[in-house]
């Protein structure tokens, strides 16, 4: 089992997407199936982007097992008042300036859930959000 930790800063669009790309590369080197790699990379990517857009700062922790990948995103930020609403496709609170960069379509959380075999989310308004996704092999 290997743990990788990535620090993510809010509004840092220069490096946004780095976590997903790095994870993809590593899983590929390890020899995970392409589909598993894709799902894990997408989940990690969306979690990272969520932190960049919504939070002040956060961390994406990845644990790689031979049976799959666990990705945990934890941030310090405004939190989500209504998780059920946030889980709806197309619902977004992202500011308009990030739309121009192709983000904020309200697909982030639903996308993570779609890619995950196990998906958990908890949030405290004014504190931050915790998202856990597990992608299993075969």
């Amino acid at each position, binding site marked *: *089992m*290997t743990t*990788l930790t990535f620090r993510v800063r809010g509004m840092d669009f220069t490096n*946004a*997407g*780095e976590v*997903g*790309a790095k994870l*993809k590369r*590593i899983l*590929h*080197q*390890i*020899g*995970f199936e*392409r589909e598993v790699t*894709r799902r894990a990379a997408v989940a990690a*990517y969306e979690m990272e982007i969520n932190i960049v857009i919504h939070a002040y700062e956060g961390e994406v922790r990845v644990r*790689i*097992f*031979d049976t799959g990948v666990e990705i945990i995103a934890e941030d310090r930020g405004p939190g989500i008042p209504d998780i059920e609403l946030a889980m709806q496709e197309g619902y977004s609170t992202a500011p308009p300036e990030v739309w121009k960069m*192709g983000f904020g379509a309200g697909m982030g959380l639903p996308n993570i859930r779609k890619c995950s075999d196990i998906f958990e989310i908890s949030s405290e308004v004014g504190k931050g959000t915790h998202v856990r996704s597990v992608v299993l*092999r075969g």
Partner: protein
Amino acid sequence: MKYYHSVRLEVSRCIGCTRCIKVCPTEAIRVRGRRSVIMEDRCIDCGECFRVCHQHAWQAMADPLERIGDFDVSIALVPPSFYAQFGPEVEPEHVISALKDVGFQEVFDAAYAKEAMTRAYRMFMKTEKWEAPLISPACPAVVRLLQVSYPDLLGHIIPLDSPIEIAAKMAKQESGAWSDSSNQRVGCFLITPCPARVTAIKQPVGGRRSYVDGAFSMSDIFGLVFKKLDPRKSEKIGKMATGSGISWARSGGEALSLGTKKVLAVDGIHAVITVLHELERGKLRDIEFIEARACAGGCIGGPLTVENPFIARVRNRMLSEHRRSKSLAVPVEWVEENYPKGYFHLAGTIPPRDVLRMDSTVRGALDRLERMEALLQELPGYDCGACGSPTCRTYALDVVCGLAGDGRCEFRRQARDADDGERMVRMTCRQLAERLGLDIAVEAESLDEEVKGCWCSDMLSDVMAQAGHGDIWVTVHTHPNIVAVASVTGVSAIVITSDKKPEDRTLASARTHGVPILVTGKSSFEVAGRLWSVLKR
């Protein structure tokens, strides 16, 4: 099957300087035993290594020019980058005439086929389903880069054959000698600006045999053609490209030819990587077509070209402007007729090449990943290359994959040595002699000095160069010279091992100079080994 590639190292010229390992885009080169070593299956033949090599140790394996004679009819396939190698007064027609004087029976303008490709691209984009952005299949080094490093992006490559393959196919069909009734053997030779093209010909992606029978290095043939150039001799050929096809030689030309604004042109392999990286991050979906060239400037910047790429670029631009035309030389009807027959399509798919796998099993790979991350913590992150691997990360990976010993990092070793130094037990020479059972042959003051280290050598020059004050010198020498060396370097004692008896003169000199001499029946190996274990707890 062994993977063929055309970039080779002339071992006798290589000095192991590490310049090439750092520029290799797929990290395919290591320095081992003061020589570069290439990991054949990772090489994409981009030629970056021989651009930076001061020793000219890297070479491309193109065909020898004598191969022109292998066929009854030899066709020279001239890419537009070749025209740009000559002065502004030299027209393509002069070059064609000179090539015939060099020994080719026929000449085919590859730029003409590039115009056919432009039309084929448009057909593809109009008639088939595709996901933006498309990547050009024209640069063989870029295609191979995707196979090795970006396998997930392979689906973006337009599944059409490379323009050079199409050119060779057209050239052969065009040739009068190419028919079922003719028994003549027709060979097609490319004048190539890059080694990647040589590889692509010897081993095309998709596995089918290439239509090109050989490749001559542009720099090899340049001189021959240059000598045969004659301003009075110029020959027109039937299928000559317009400015559009000619402009493919420089970066941006291919993208421009498509006539759409949603194109991106990138040149230079490292710049290409930055764009692919963005693509991998899910960006650039608004771009329809990416023209990526491994060489800075495009094909005119190829490692086998002769002219400075910036000058060649001007020449190419002037020629393509001069020959600009409203419509392409290739008739649209011809492409429309042949495209549906599969004339342009690649025979197979482009397979990924999983050469970066850490282990054959996932469990093994995970284990290695973990050890690699642990080792990385001990490496300085300078990416200096002194260990022979291009970066600290690659080095850590090499170590856990058994491709490198774990003592190659100078910085890590120094850090460890410093640790060892701190743990050293404080002890005088006399105490040490007692512990190890060394006999004191000559008494002197420095026996009561603290031992700082040890030097075990019978090469006086080495000791002179490296031993210092406070060291103990272990040797088998017995002659008086050792006393001189000891007093010059300031070592605190000499230990003569293996039961050797110091000469009387040596003892006398040692007494005069105040250099203590210890003797023992043990070997140098044992003395050194035991000394270490005493000094380091």
